[in-house]
């Protein structure tokens, strides 16, 4: 649910909304276009090193700009866009922001 709604519900129920650090972790291939995410880990030996060089490191905050149907995801870090194959995306853990 959106943050605004979550806050409304929370105020009614007197529960505080979950802080970012506690939000569930999912894999990159579950992310939709337009979502901002934080990279948690790249669970692929070969790719991790390359990803680091590109700027897709653990802790990086990126935006998903395109999702090719049944195909790669394109994430944007700063002005740089990187295409990630679907299978590889399944092995990258991320956390949704905002």
């Amino acid at each position, binding site marked *: 649910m959106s943050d605004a709604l979550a806050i409304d519900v929370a105020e009614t129920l007197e529960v505080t909304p979950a802080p970012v650090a506690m939000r569930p972790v999912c894999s990159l291939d579950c992310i939709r276009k337009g979502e901002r995410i934080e990279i948690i880990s790249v669970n692929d030996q070969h790719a991790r090193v390359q990803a680091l*060089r*590109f700027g897709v490191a653990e802790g990086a905050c990126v935006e998903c700009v*395109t999702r090719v149907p049944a*195909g790669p995801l394109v994430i944007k870090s700063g*002005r740089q866009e*990187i*295409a990630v194959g679907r299978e590889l995306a399944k092995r990258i853990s991320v956390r949704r922001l905002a």
Partner: protein
Amino acid sequence: MAEASCHSPGSTDARSGCETVVLVGNPNVGKSVVFNALTGTYVDVSNFPGTTVELTRGRVGEHDLVDTPGVYGVSSFNDEETVARDIIVSGDIVINVVDAVHLERDLFLTLQLVDMGKRMVVALNMADEARKRGVGIDRDLLEDLLGVPVVETVAVDGKGIDNLIAAIPSARPGHADVELEHDIAEMVAHTGTRAEALLVLEGDAFVSERHGVEPSDTRDEIYLRRRHRVNDLCGHVITESTQGASFSAKLSHAMMHPLTGVPLLLALLAVMYVVIGQWIAGGVVGFLEGDIMNAHFVPFIQGLVGRAFAPGSPVYTILAGEFGVLTMTPTYLLAVILPLVAGFYALLALLEDSGYLPRIAALTDRSLTSMGLNGRAIIPLILGLGCITMGTLTTRILGSKRERFIATALMAIAVPCSAQIAVIAALMTKTGPGYAAAYFGILMAVFVAVGTVLNKLVPGTSTDLLIDLPSLRIPRLDNVVRKTGMKVYHFMKEVTVFFVVGAALISTLQVTGVIDWIMQVARPLTVGWLGLPPQAARAFVMGFVRRDFGAAGFFTMNLSDAQLLVAMVTITLFVPCIASTMVVLKERGWAYTVGLMVGSIGFAFLLGGIVARVVGVA
């Protein structure tokens, strides 16, 4: 390699004032243009091979300048990095060329060089591009934070080059990662140089072995810290005043999504077909081959050779006969292969420079994955349409042995080369449209089927797509021309020998009567199984010599439309020409090549026979 250099590679004593300067940078930052601007020589150490990784050297002022292949980092990840690593370690001064538009990506390598303790200068290239896109970079602040001189350049216009040359004497080590100092100090005792100490800490197996130490497992931590430092730097020095152009974002999107991307790709293929298939293969090749080579060159050579050896004698046949080394080989190479290869490399350079190529890779990734490849394989496959030798050599860019295996087989079996396509197209225009469509349909189905089967059978794991999508832009003509020229030159240098040897082999077979024997033996197969006239056997053998000869052999046979379909399908699936076979041999080895020949011959005839029965010819 070392004609007039200051000192031999690896040695540390040099004449005073004469040092080795190494040019380092990511792929596509304009390094070769900087090299040319500094030395006055055009060279291209590019990342799409058709060449082995080559060293290029020049002189700038009193110093030697060495170019390196574009790399994203220094280690032993692939051939390019291994070559770059050793040059950088032994170099005295480093000029690090970075792309002002993609600083967040490029500074990673910069900081690694800083951590290595190299004396360096940073060339902030494409400064004009950055300004045009509203990207402001605080050069002074960057210089302070890095601790090394930073010079703005626009290499293609020659701007800033004088400043860059003037900055070389002030090259100095920058502000390295403080947390590394302790570990590096310890490691230097073993490795001698700080650069190699860092490489050992980053887990480089080769460098570690060289000095008899164990590689550390601290690479991920070091890389992570470096990534944070880069982000921090960029946060301070970059200011963006306008948002990225929304048109280019929309176009980028359209290129990658199947609904719009596939029609765009088909449009590209249509343009390719007209330009390369008709203008070049039809017009240019026809002119060069017919009006120049066959009309003048070949008779001239035959006359010369005829004076020393009697026409019809074995030596004459091998040198100047139908498949003569001095007649057919130059004709084929210069009149057919050269224009086609140049056309395809030009196409690739256009796609690369405009930024469309990686987006095609993203579009096709899904389909290629089901065949054990990934989007990157589209590059050798496109080149394979030009010439199978080009495609096979380019499989070097693929990430795993498995992918190289599958891609080579796919090209050898199911991809017709442009020489062949031109002839087949000419033949198919005479048949009904249904047959042409059937031909394409069968070919596509075979391509997918072979790929899927290989994906199931070939052991090992393939790599996944992870590529940089540079911004879309209008290709620069001088870039395209320069890249094409260099690639064509290196390609011709590498493959000419295969075509020469191939022609010699075939001529020898002809002289010894082996070719006639093969044709006799193959008759039952061609007539009984495929339903084609007995002369078809000759065309198949010709196809092994030159793929266009193979297809052209069917011109004079007065085949029915259905027979033509059978013939075209079989000749396409048949083995590649002898030159390509030799390149496959070089790249993949004997076992693979023999397996491929047997497999493709068997498969070609099997499918040809099936098609023959389906259309009622046999």
